[in-house]
Protein backbone atom coordinates (compact mmCIF):
# COMPACT_ATOMS: atom_id res chain seq x y z
CA UNK A 1 0.00 0.00 0.00
CA UNK A 2 1.26 3.46 -0.86
CA UNK A 3 0.85 6.06 1.86
CA UNK A 4 1.38 9.55 0.54
CA UNK A 5 2.15 12.82 2.25
CA UNK A 6 -1.11 14.26 3.59
CA UNK A 7 -3.08 11.61 1.74
CA UNK A 8 -2.80 13.44 -1.56
CA UNK A 9 -4.08 11.18 -4.25
CA UNK A 10 -3.09 10.90 -7.87
CA UNK A 11 -5.53 11.95 -10.57
CA UNK A 12 -8.07 9.71 -12.22
CA UNK A 13 -7.33 6.57 -10.31
CA UNK A 14 -11.06 5.98 -10.32
CA UNK A 15 -10.52 4.42 -13.71
CA UNK A 16 -9.46 1.32 -11.83
CA UNK A 17 -13.00 0.97 -10.56
CA UNK A 18 -14.99 -0.78 -13.16
CA UNK A 19 -18.43 0.39 -12.11
CA UNK A 20 -19.91 -1.48 -15.01
CA UNK A 21 -20.48 -4.35 -12.59
CA UNK A 22 -23.22 -2.29 -10.95
CA UNK A 23 -25.45 -2.40 -13.97
CA UNK A 24 -28.53 -4.57 -14.11
CA UNK A 25 -29.83 -3.06 -17.32
CA UNK A 26 -27.55 -1.57 -19.94
CA UNK A 27 -28.14 0.74 -22.88
CA UNK A 28 -27.96 -0.62 -26.38
CA UNK A 29 -27.44 2.09 -28.94
CA UNK A 30 -28.93 1.60 -32.31
CA UNK A 31 -26.20 3.00 -34.50
CA UNK A 32 -28.56 3.40 -37.38
CA UNK A 33 -30.94 5.58 -35.50
CA UNK A 34 -28.30 7.61 -33.72
CA UNK A 35 -28.05 11.11 -35.13
CA UNK A 36 -24.87 11.89 -33.24
CA UNK A 37 -26.44 14.78 -31.33
CA UNK A 38 -24.37 14.13 -28.22
CA UNK A 39 -27.22 14.51 -25.75
CA UNK A 40 -26.51 11.16 -24.18
CA UNK A 41 -22.85 12.08 -23.94
CA UNK A 42 -23.62 15.29 -22.12
CA UNK A 43 -26.07 13.74 -19.70
CA UNK A 44 -24.35 10.51 -18.82
CA UNK A 45 -23.49 10.78 -15.10
CA UNK A 46 -20.83 8.17 -15.49
CA UNK A 47 -19.03 9.84 -18.32
CA UNK A 48 -19.06 6.59 -20.19
CA UNK A 49 -20.45 7.58 -23.52
CA UNK A 50 -18.05 8.55 -26.20
CA UNK A 51 -18.87 10.19 -29.48
CA UNK A 52 -17.19 8.46 -32.33
CA UNK A 53 -16.62 9.92 -35.75
CA UNK A 54 -16.53 7.34 -38.48
CA UNK A 55 -16.44 8.48 -42.04
CA UNK A 56 -19.23 10.98 -42.16
CA UNK A 57 -21.25 9.44 -39.41
CA UNK A 58 -21.02 10.56 -35.81
CA UNK A 59 -22.47 8.26 -33.23
CA UNK A 60 -22.44 7.37 -29.58
CA UNK A 61 -20.67 4.40 -28.03
CA UNK A 62 -21.06 3.12 -24.48
CA UNK A 63 -18.14 2.05 -22.36
CA UNK A 64 -19.71 -0.90 -20.60
CA UNK A 65 -16.81 -1.14 -18.19
CA UNK A 66 -18.25 1.84 -16.40
CA UNK A 67 -21.89 2.18 -17.40
CA UNK A 68 -24.02 1.72 -14.29
CA UNK A 69 -27.14 1.32 -16.33
CA UNK A 70 -29.08 4.26 -14.93
CA UNK A 71 -31.04 4.67 -18.13
CA UNK A 72 -30.69 8.43 -18.42
CA UNK A 73 -29.15 8.25 -21.88
CA UNK A 74 -32.11 6.30 -23.08
CA UNK A 75 -34.50 8.86 -21.62
CA UNK A 76 -32.79 11.85 -23.18
CA UNK A 77 -32.05 10.47 -26.62
CA UNK A 78 -34.13 12.53 -29.03
CA UNK A 79 -33.84 9.85 -31.70
CA UNK A 80 -35.04 7.03 -29.52
CA UNK A 81 -31.86 5.26 -30.44
CA UNK A 82 -31.15 3.86 -27.00
CA UNK A 83 -32.88 0.90 -25.49
CA UNK A 84 -32.21 -0.45 -22.02
CA UNK A 85 -31.68 -4.17 -22.06
CA UNK A 86 -31.00 -6.70 -19.38
CA UNK A 87 -27.38 -7.34 -18.80
CA UNK A 88 -26.52 -10.89 -19.55
CA UNK A 89 -25.60 -12.76 -16.43
CA UNK A 90 -22.88 -15.23 -17.16
Amino acid sequence: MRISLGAVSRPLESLNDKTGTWAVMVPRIDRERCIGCGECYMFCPDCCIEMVQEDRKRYAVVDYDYCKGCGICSEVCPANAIEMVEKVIE
Partner: protein
Amino acid sequence: MRKVVRGFYAVAYSVKLCKPNVICAYPITPQTEISENLAEMYANGELENCKYITAESEFEAASILVGASATGARTFTATCSQGLILMSEVLINAAGMRLPIVIVNTNRALSAPLSIWNDLQDSMLLRDSGIIQIYVEDNQEVHEMIPQAYKIAESTMFPTMICMDGFKLTHAYEPIDLLDQETVDGFLPPYEPPIKLSIDEPLTFGAYAPPHCYMEFRYKMHKDMLNAKNKIEDVFKEWGEIRRDWGGLIEFKEGKTVLVSLGSLVGTMKEVAKEMGLGYLKVRTYRPFPYDEIREALKDCDNVVVFDRAVSFGYEGVLTIDIRNALYGESPNVYSFIVGLGGRDVPKEVMEDCVSKVLSGRAERYRFEGLKDFEEVTY
Protein backbone atom coordinates in the same frame (compact mmCIF):
# COMPACT_ATOMS: atom_id res chain seq x y z
CA MET B 1 -39.51 -5.37 27.12
CA ARG B 2 -36.74 -6.99 25.12
CA LYS B 3 -36.73 -6.04 21.49
CA VAL B 4 -34.28 -6.21 18.65
CA VAL B 5 -33.48 -2.60 17.80
CA ARG B 6 -30.64 -0.64 16.32
CA GLY B 7 -28.25 1.36 18.50
CA PHE B 8 -29.67 4.64 17.23
CA TYR B 9 -33.08 3.69 18.41
CA ALA B 10 -31.84 2.50 21.77
CA VAL B 11 -30.58 6.05 22.24
CA ALA B 12 -33.51 7.92 20.76
CA TYR B 13 -36.12 5.94 22.61
CA SER B 14 -34.39 6.47 25.91
CA VAL B 15 -34.05 10.19 25.21
CA LYS B 16 -37.77 10.34 24.58
CA LEU B 17 -38.45 8.70 27.93
CA CYS B 18 -36.39 11.43 29.60
CA LYS B 19 -38.82 14.06 28.27
CA PRO B 20 -36.42 16.65 26.95
CA ASN B 21 -37.77 20.09 26.08
CA VAL B 22 -35.44 21.09 23.31
CA ILE B 23 -33.66 18.73 20.95
CA CYS B 24 -31.34 20.13 18.39
CA ALA B 25 -28.75 18.31 16.38
CA TYR B 26 -27.04 18.34 13.03
CA PRO B 27 -26.60 15.35 10.76
CA ILE B 28 -23.26 13.61 10.74
CA THR B 29 -22.42 9.98 10.18
CA PRO B 30 -22.74 7.87 12.30
CA GLN B 31 -24.89 10.01 14.55
CA THR B 32 -27.62 11.00 12.12
CA GLU B 33 -30.11 8.28 12.71
CA ILE B 34 -30.40 9.22 16.35
CA SER B 35 -31.77 12.60 15.24
CA GLU B 36 -33.81 10.94 12.56
CA ASN B 37 -35.48 8.67 15.04
CA LEU B 38 -36.27 11.63 17.24
CA ALA B 39 -37.53 13.60 14.24
CA GLU B 40 -39.88 10.81 13.45
CA MET B 41 -41.23 10.69 16.98
CA TYR B 42 -41.66 14.45 16.77
CA ALA B 43 -43.48 14.30 13.45
CA ASN B 44 -45.76 11.71 14.95
CA GLY B 45 -46.51 13.87 17.95
CA GLU B 46 -44.83 11.52 20.39
CA LEU B 47 -42.61 14.10 22.07
CA GLU B 48 -44.60 16.18 24.51
CA ASN B 49 -43.54 19.65 25.57
CA CYS B 50 -40.68 19.35 23.22
CA LYS B 51 -39.27 21.28 20.29
CA TYR B 52 -37.18 19.42 17.76
CA ILE B 53 -35.10 21.93 15.81
CA THR B 54 -33.09 21.41 12.67
CA ALA B 55 -29.99 23.57 13.06
CA GLU B 56 -27.69 24.63 10.25
CA SER B 57 -24.51 23.42 11.92
CA GLU B 58 -23.27 21.74 15.05
CA PHE B 59 -21.98 25.04 16.32
CA GLU B 60 -25.47 26.41 16.05
CA ALA B 61 -27.10 23.33 17.54
CA ALA B 62 -24.95 23.59 20.65
CA SER B 63 -25.57 27.33 20.86
CA ILE B 64 -29.32 26.90 20.66
CA LEU B 65 -29.07 24.48 23.54
CA VAL B 66 -27.03 26.96 25.55
CA GLY B 67 -29.90 29.42 25.27
CA ALA B 68 -32.51 26.80 25.96
CA SER B 69 -30.68 25.23 28.89
CA ALA B 70 -30.03 28.60 30.50
CA THR B 71 -33.76 29.27 30.25
CA GLY B 72 -34.47 26.10 32.18
CA ALA B 73 -35.17 23.58 29.45
CA ARG B 74 -33.95 19.99 29.47
CA THR B 75 -31.88 19.63 26.33
CA PHE B 76 -30.37 17.00 24.10
CA THR B 77 -27.97 16.82 21.21
CA ALA B 78 -25.93 14.17 19.49
CA THR B 79 -22.90 14.56 17.30
CA CYS B 80 -19.35 13.33 16.73
CA SER B 81 -16.03 13.95 15.08
CA GLN B 82 -15.94 17.09 12.94
CA GLY B 83 -19.23 18.10 14.48
CA LEU B 84 -17.97 17.73 18.02
CA ILE B 85 -14.85 19.75 17.30
CA LEU B 86 -16.87 22.37 15.45
CA MET B 87 -19.10 22.86 18.47
CA SER B 88 -16.26 22.65 20.95
CA GLU B 89 -16.01 26.37 21.63
CA VAL B 90 -19.66 26.36 22.63
CA LEU B 91 -19.42 23.21 24.72
CA ILE B 92 -16.40 24.46 26.60
CA ASN B 93 -18.33 27.63 27.20
CA ALA B 94 -21.38 25.70 28.37
CA ALA B 95 -19.19 23.77 30.79
CA GLY B 96 -17.99 26.98 32.39
CA MET B 97 -21.55 28.27 32.48
CA ARG B 98 -22.51 25.01 34.12
CA LEU B 99 -25.32 24.11 31.78
CA PRO B 100 -26.43 20.48 32.09
CA ILE B 101 -26.76 19.72 28.39
CA VAL B 102 -26.73 16.01 27.60
CA ILE B 103 -24.76 14.99 24.54
CA VAL B 104 -24.38 11.65 22.87
CA ASN B 105 -21.16 11.40 20.91
CA THR B 106 -21.05 8.56 18.44
CA ASN B 107 -17.28 8.34 18.37
CA ARG B 108 -15.70 8.78 14.98
CA ALA B 109 -12.20 9.53 13.75
CA LEU B 110 -11.02 13.02 12.88
CA SER B 111 -10.05 14.44 9.54
CA ALA B 112 -7.63 14.64 7.65
CA PRO B 113 -7.77 12.23 6.02
CA LEU B 114 -11.50 12.21 6.45
CA SER B 115 -12.90 9.08 8.00
CA ILE B 116 -16.46 8.37 8.99
CA TRP B 117 -15.30 5.35 10.94
CA ASN B 118 -14.72 4.77 14.56
CA ASP B 119 -12.02 5.72 16.99
CA LEU B 120 -11.95 7.91 20.09
CA GLN B 121 -9.88 10.83 18.88
CA ASP B 122 -12.85 13.19 18.88
CA SER B 123 -14.17 12.99 22.43
CA MET B 124 -10.76 12.40 23.97
CA LEU B 125 -9.51 15.61 22.43
CA LEU B 126 -11.99 17.41 24.67
CA ARG B 127 -10.96 15.69 27.87
CA ASP B 128 -9.79 18.95 29.47
CA SER B 129 -12.94 20.86 28.81
CA GLY B 130 -15.09 20.45 31.88
CA ILE B 131 -17.52 18.03 30.31
CA ILE B 132 -18.35 14.79 32.08
CA GLN B 133 -17.46 11.90 29.79
CA ILE B 134 -18.96 8.44 30.16
CA TYR B 135 -18.03 5.62 27.79
CA VAL B 136 -20.41 2.77 27.20
CA GLU B 137 -19.72 -0.79 26.24
CA ASP B 138 -22.87 -1.69 24.38
CA ASN B 139 -26.30 -0.53 23.41
CA GLN B 140 -27.97 -1.81 26.55
CA GLU B 141 -25.61 0.33 28.54
CA VAL B 142 -26.19 3.43 26.42
CA HIS B 143 -29.92 2.90 26.58
CA GLU B 144 -29.80 2.81 30.35
CA MET B 145 -27.18 5.52 30.60
CA ILE B 146 -29.31 8.29 29.12
CA PRO B 147 -31.57 8.79 32.17
CA GLN B 148 -28.53 8.45 34.40
CA ALA B 149 -26.70 11.07 32.36
CA TYR B 150 -29.57 13.50 32.85
CA LYS B 151 -29.54 12.91 36.54
CA ILE B 152 -25.78 13.35 36.70
CA ALA B 153 -25.81 16.46 34.55
CA GLU B 154 -28.62 18.13 36.42
CA SER B 155 -27.36 17.35 39.88
CA THR B 156 -23.77 18.39 39.13
CA MET B 157 -24.57 21.10 36.60
CA PHE B 158 -22.04 19.94 34.06
CA PRO B 159 -22.64 19.12 30.41
CA THR B 160 -22.54 15.36 30.27
CA MET B 161 -21.44 13.45 27.23
CA ILE B 162 -22.08 9.79 26.64
CA CYS B 163 -19.54 8.39 24.25
CA MET B 164 -20.63 5.40 22.21
CA ASP B 165 -18.63 3.92 19.41
CA GLY B 166 -19.82 4.88 15.98
CA PHE B 167 -20.93 2.00 13.73
CA LYS B 168 -19.86 -0.68 16.18
CA LEU B 169 -22.69 0.37 18.47
CA THR B 170 -24.81 2.84 16.55
CA HIS B 171 -25.41 0.47 13.66
CA ALA B 172 -25.71 -2.71 15.67
CA TYR B 173 -29.13 -4.31 15.58
CA GLU B 174 -29.48 -6.41 18.68
CA PRO B 175 -31.80 -7.33 21.53
CA ILE B 176 -32.28 -4.54 24.06
CA ASP B 177 -34.33 -4.58 27.25
CA LEU B 178 -36.19 -1.37 26.66
CA LEU B 179 -37.02 0.91 29.55
CA ASP B 180 -40.53 2.02 30.21
CA GLN B 181 -41.83 5.45 31.02
CA GLU B 182 -42.70 4.59 34.57
CA THR B 183 -39.21 3.44 35.45
CA VAL B 184 -37.67 6.56 34.01
CA ASP B 185 -40.22 8.87 35.60
CA GLY B 186 -39.58 7.27 38.94
CA PHE B 187 -35.88 7.74 38.57
CA LEU B 188 -35.52 11.10 36.88
CA PRO B 189 -37.37 14.05 38.39
CA PRO B 190 -38.30 17.05 36.20
CA TYR B 191 -35.49 19.53 35.74
CA GLU B 192 -35.60 22.32 38.33
CA PRO B 193 -32.58 24.49 37.64
CA PRO B 194 -30.94 26.31 40.55
CA ILE B 195 -30.24 29.20 38.19
CA LYS B 196 -32.11 30.24 35.09
CA LEU B 197 -32.95 33.22 32.93
CA SER B 198 -36.15 34.75 34.16
CA ILE B 199 -37.80 38.12 34.37
CA ASP B 200 -38.51 37.69 38.05
CA GLU B 201 -34.94 37.07 39.06
CA PRO B 202 -32.97 38.79 36.33
CA LEU B 203 -29.56 37.16 36.57
CA THR B 204 -26.61 37.89 34.35
CA PHE B 205 -25.31 34.75 32.66
CA GLY B 206 -21.89 34.55 31.07
CA ALA B 207 -20.21 37.31 33.03
CA TYR B 208 -16.52 37.72 32.47
CA ALA B 209 -13.99 37.25 35.21
CA PRO B 210 -10.86 39.37 35.63
CA PRO B 211 -7.72 37.91 37.15
CA HIS B 212 -8.92 38.69 40.65
CA CYS B 213 -11.56 35.95 40.47
CA TYR B 214 -11.18 33.82 37.32
CA MET B 215 -8.95 31.24 38.92
CA GLU B 216 -11.42 30.67 41.74
CA PHE B 217 -14.15 29.93 39.23
CA ARG B 218 -11.96 27.41 37.51
CA TYR B 219 -10.89 25.89 40.78
CA LYS B 220 -14.52 25.55 41.79
CA MET B 221 -15.27 23.91 38.50
CA HIS B 222 -12.47 21.44 39.03
CA LYS B 223 -13.49 20.73 42.60
CA ASP B 224 -17.13 20.33 41.63
CA MET B 225 -16.07 17.91 38.98
CA LEU B 226 -14.06 15.86 41.43
CA ASN B 227 -17.05 15.89 43.74
CA ALA B 228 -19.17 14.78 40.83
CA LYS B 229 -17.52 11.39 41.23
CA ASN B 230 -19.54 10.76 44.34
CA LYS B 231 -22.67 11.95 42.66
CA ILE B 232 -22.03 9.69 39.71
CA GLU B 233 -21.41 6.75 42.00
CA ASP B 234 -24.68 7.50 43.74
CA VAL B 235 -26.59 7.68 40.50
CA PHE B 236 -25.01 4.46 39.28
CA LYS B 237 -25.88 2.81 42.57
CA GLU B 238 -29.45 4.02 42.51
CA TRP B 239 -29.79 2.72 39.00
CA GLY B 240 -28.28 -0.56 40.08
CA GLU B 241 -31.00 -0.91 42.63
CA ILE B 242 -33.95 -0.16 40.43
CA ARG B 243 -32.61 -1.75 37.31
CA ARG B 244 -29.23 -3.30 36.81
CA ASP B 245 -25.84 -2.87 38.40
CA TRP B 246 -23.28 -1.87 35.78
CA GLY B 247 -20.55 -1.10 38.26
CA GLY B 248 -19.13 2.18 39.43
CA LEU B 249 -16.74 4.64 37.80
CA ILE B 250 -14.81 1.61 36.67
CA GLU B 251 -15.59 -2.05 36.31
CA PHE B 252 -12.71 -4.18 37.52
CA LYS B 253 -11.71 -7.79 37.58
CA GLU B 254 -8.49 -8.63 39.33
CA GLY B 255 -5.53 -10.30 37.73
CA LYS B 256 -1.75 -10.24 37.63
CA THR B 257 -2.04 -8.90 34.15
CA VAL B 258 -4.89 -6.48 33.66
CA LEU B 259 -6.28 -5.27 30.36
CA VAL B 260 -7.60 -1.73 30.30
CA SER B 261 -9.91 -0.09 27.83
CA LEU B 262 -13.23 1.64 27.30
CA GLY B 263 -16.11 1.76 24.87
CA SER B 264 -17.14 -1.08 22.63
CA LEU B 265 -13.71 -2.66 22.80
CA VAL B 266 -14.60 -3.74 26.30
CA GLY B 267 -16.69 -6.64 25.04
CA THR B 268 -13.75 -8.15 23.20
CA MET B 269 -11.44 -7.28 26.05
CA LYS B 270 -13.56 -9.14 28.56
CA GLU B 271 -13.63 -12.19 26.37
CA VAL B 272 -9.89 -12.16 25.89
CA ALA B 273 -9.39 -11.66 29.62
CA LYS B 274 -11.67 -14.56 30.36
CA GLU B 275 -10.09 -16.88 27.87
CA MET B 276 -6.55 -16.02 28.89
CA GLY B 277 -7.27 -15.82 32.62
CA LEU B 278 -6.39 -12.15 32.96
CA GLY B 279 -7.94 -9.25 34.79
CA TYR B 280 -9.57 -6.33 33.11
CA LEU B 281 -10.51 -2.78 33.89
CA LYS B 282 -13.25 -0.96 32.05
CA VAL B 283 -13.15 2.81 32.38
CA ARG B 284 -16.77 3.93 32.53
CA THR B 285 -16.29 7.51 33.64
CA TYR B 286 -13.33 9.06 31.94
CA ARG B 287 -13.86 12.60 33.19
CA PRO B 288 -13.88 13.08 36.12
CA PHE B 289 -11.03 10.62 36.00
CA PRO B 290 -11.31 7.81 38.56
CA TYR B 291 -7.78 8.30 39.83
CA ASP B 292 -8.14 6.63 43.19
CA GLU B 293 -10.21 3.77 41.88
CA ILE B 294 -7.78 2.99 39.09
CA ARG B 295 -4.72 3.34 41.25
CA GLU B 296 -6.17 1.15 43.92
CA ALA B 297 -7.25 -1.46 41.39
CA LEU B 298 -4.02 -1.66 39.45
CA LYS B 299 -1.24 -0.78 41.80
CA ASP B 300 -0.33 -4.29 42.78
CA CYS B 301 -0.58 -6.07 39.50
CA ASP B 302 2.38 -6.96 37.30
CA ASN B 303 1.29 -5.80 33.90
CA VAL B 304 -1.20 -3.25 32.79
CA VAL B 305 -2.08 -3.48 29.12
CA VAL B 306 -3.88 -0.46 27.80
CA PHE B 307 -5.75 -0.53 24.51
CA ASP B 308 -5.91 3.00 23.25
CA ARG B 309 -7.93 4.35 20.35
CA ALA B 310 -6.73 7.95 20.43
CA VAL B 311 -3.22 9.31 19.96
CA SER B 312 -1.65 12.48 21.16
CA PHE B 313 0.42 12.96 18.03
CA GLY B 314 4.07 13.23 18.83
CA TYR B 315 3.57 11.57 22.18
CA GLU B 316 1.53 8.44 22.95
CA GLY B 317 -1.90 6.95 23.42
CA VAL B 318 -4.18 9.29 25.31
CA LEU B 319 -5.70 6.88 27.81
CA THR B 320 -2.30 5.40 28.53
CA ILE B 321 -0.84 8.72 29.52
CA ASP B 322 -3.69 9.21 31.96
CA ILE B 323 -3.31 5.71 33.35
CA ARG B 324 0.43 6.00 33.88
CA ASN B 325 -0.10 9.25 35.68
CA ALA B 326 -2.53 7.50 37.99
CA LEU B 327 -0.06 4.71 38.66
CA TYR B 328 2.95 6.94 39.09
CA GLY B 329 5.15 5.67 41.86
CA GLU B 330 3.63 2.20 41.72
CA SER B 331 5.32 -0.71 40.11
CA PRO B 332 3.19 -2.33 37.41
CA ASN B 333 4.59 -2.38 33.93
CA VAL B 334 2.28 -0.40 31.72
CA TYR B 335 2.15 -1.39 28.07
CA SER B 336 0.13 0.47 25.54
CA PHE B 337 -1.31 -0.64 22.25
CA ILE B 338 -2.82 1.83 19.88
CA VAL B 339 -5.46 0.00 17.92
CA GLY B 340 -8.53 0.47 15.86
CA LEU B 341 -7.97 3.96 14.47
CA GLY B 342 -10.36 5.09 11.77
CA GLY B 343 -12.43 1.92 11.95
CA ARG B 344 -9.62 -0.59 11.74
CA ASP B 345 -11.03 -3.79 13.18
CA VAL B 346 -9.68 -5.04 16.48
CA PRO B 347 -10.34 -8.76 16.39
CA LYS B 348 -9.71 -10.88 19.42
CA GLU B 349 -6.60 -12.24 17.77
CA VAL B 350 -5.00 -8.81 17.70
CA MET B 351 -5.69 -8.35 21.38
CA GLU B 352 -4.40 -11.78 22.17
CA ASP B 353 -1.32 -11.06 20.17
CA CYS B 354 -0.74 -7.89 22.17
CA VAL B 355 -1.11 -9.81 25.39
CA SER B 356 1.32 -12.48 24.35
CA LYS B 357 3.82 -9.82 23.39
CA VAL B 358 3.48 -8.50 26.93
CA LEU B 359 3.66 -11.87 28.61
CA SER B 360 6.70 -12.93 26.65
CA GLY B 361 8.50 -9.67 27.30
CA ARG B 362 8.40 -8.53 23.71
CA ALA B 363 6.18 -5.51 24.27
CA GLU B 364 7.40 -1.97 23.98
CA ARG B 365 6.24 1.06 25.91
CA TYR B 366 3.65 1.61 23.26
CA ARG B 367 2.99 0.40 19.78
CA PHE B 368 0.53 0.78 16.95
CA GLU B 369 -0.99 -2.64 16.50
CA GLY B 370 -2.84 -3.91 13.48
CA LEU B 371 -0.95 -1.89 10.87
CA LYS B 372 -0.49 -3.16 7.36
CA ASP B 373 2.65 -2.97 5.31
CA PHE B 374 2.96 0.24 3.45
CA GLU B 375 5.35 2.24 1.40
CA GLU B 376 5.80 5.96 2.00
CA VAL B 377 5.54 8.10 -1.08
CA THR B 378 5.19 11.79 -1.76
CA TYR B 379 2.18 11.13 -3.95
